[in-house]
């Protein structure tokens, strides 16, 4: 082993620093490009390695937490049981009605010869890791490409929309939450097809609230109204609940409303999520490119 003198070390240090800074800078440049364009390879493989550490730790900590919460929950178990029994009976009645409606829907679809543009299943996943940096708030879940997860698939909970998949490894994937300020969700206030209050929902720096932009000031908007996805952004399907409006600064005919939304999903306390195995219907060629931007030369 070569022993270096302290003087050699001091002489070598600036050059080593410059080399390391260049390596890190190049990685950053590539990563910044890949964030919007595609798969982040280094990241997804590191997540797979980290999964072997994170999964056992998460299992142990959640088991301990569940043990203590189950003790505290025992107190209210009897009351909950009575309420749930009543609720089950109500739901059974509702289910019967919905089965009839679904059957009717299928009959009508076949009658009209309509085809579904996209179908999706829900894959349940457990959150095994949170962002180690305090600056961002992504999550890592225990489902990857081997389970059929792909880039940009929407992630939901029973409450509503959580975010989308931004990096996929074989065993794990990374989920960026809707609260991230770079996220954008095509959304509508009220039900799709019944409202024309369209806008884009993105994250803010105001804690866990979301902001809805570009909603025309001439449209009536009230606090408490629900916001749903429109399905027009090419990532999320239509009809997913994003949240409820908690604040509106009314706009005018020329300025849009300033709307703040409380996310429907409990983003800070969620333990399990559902990944929608959904691929948005591919757009027509003319929708992807502007006609005057194509440079196809026909001979």
């Amino acid at each position, binding site marked *: 082993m070569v022993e270096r003198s*302290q003087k050699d*070390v*001091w002489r*070598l*240090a*600036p050059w*080593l*620093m410059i080399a*390391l*800074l260049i*390596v*890190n*800078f*190049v*990685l*950053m*440049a*590539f*990563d*910044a490009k890949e*964030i919007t364009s595609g798969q*982040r390879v*280094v*990241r997804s493989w*590191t*997540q797979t390695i*980290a999964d072997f*550490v*994170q999964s056992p*730790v*998460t299992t142990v*900590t959640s088991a301990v937490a569940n043990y203590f919460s189950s003790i505290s929950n025992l107190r209210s178990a009897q009351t909950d049981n009575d309420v749930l029994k009543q609720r089950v009976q109500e739901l059974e009645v509702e289910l019967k009605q919905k089965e009839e409606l679904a059957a009717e829907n299928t009959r009508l679809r076949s009658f009209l010869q309509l085809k579904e543009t996209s179908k999706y299943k829900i894959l349940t996943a457990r*959150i*095994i*890791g*949170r*962002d*180690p*940096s*305090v*600056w*961002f*708030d*992504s999550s*890592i879940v225990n489902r990857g490409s081997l389970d059929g997860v792909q880039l940009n698939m929407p992630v939901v909970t029973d409450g509503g929309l959580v975010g989308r998949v*931004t990096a996929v490894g074989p065993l794990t994937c*990374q989920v*960026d939450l809707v*609260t*991230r*300020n*770079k996220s954008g969700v095509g959304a509508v206030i009220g039900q799709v097809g019944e409202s024309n209050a369209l806008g884009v929902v993105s*994250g*803010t*720096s105001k804690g866990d609230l979301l902001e809805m932009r570009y909603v025309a000031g001439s449209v009536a908007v009230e606090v408490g109204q629900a916001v749903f996805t429109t399905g027009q952004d090419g990532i999320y399907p239509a009809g997913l609940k994003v949240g409820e409006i908690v604040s509106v600064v009314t706009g005018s005919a020329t300025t849009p409303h300033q709307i703040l939304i409380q996310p429907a999903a409990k983003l*800070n306390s969620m333990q399990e999520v559902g990944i929608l195995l959904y691929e948005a219907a591919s757009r027509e060629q003319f929708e992807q490119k502007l006609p005057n931007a194509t440079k196809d030369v026909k001979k």
Partner: protein
Amino acid sequence: MEGVKLTISLIIAIVLQWTLRNVWEPLAYIDLPLIIVVYAALQRNSIRALLFGSIAGLSVDALSGGLLGANGFSKTIVAYIVCEITRRVYMDNLILRIPVIAGACLLDDMIYYGLHRLFGQPPGNDVLVTAAYSLIGTTIAGTLVYLLLQSLSGERTRRKKRDVFAPRRQTRRRNPIRLGK
């Protein structure tokens, strides 16, 4: 032996950084890899400190929603600056190390945030609030970790302390009576 101890400490710090946020959200404000990187830099081995800075940063970046390499970049710069300070100023006292870890944390956060702004990916958090909490958490945790690491380093540290804080040799006072004589 010192190198092995520090490498193990760094691995433990990275693993804890990956997992502690799951246990309790505010623990994310403590930058454990940075604490070990600064400690390595304070040992006057600049090459080890620089490599530690890059590796620790990249390990955190790989699981983060931020840019891959941003933490590596900031921690490498911090490691180099702390090395240069240590070269010029005597830093073996724990009291002096506390402002160093605080300054390193602040610098690391500023570089990290600046790089994300540069690449058009600014974090959504309030910079001042996040940096302040991070500063408090990392400084307190850093002080405790340094105490732990010093106590673990055993005989070598005790010898060093004995040398540094050795009792002053009492010079024999001249006898005033004899002087008067």
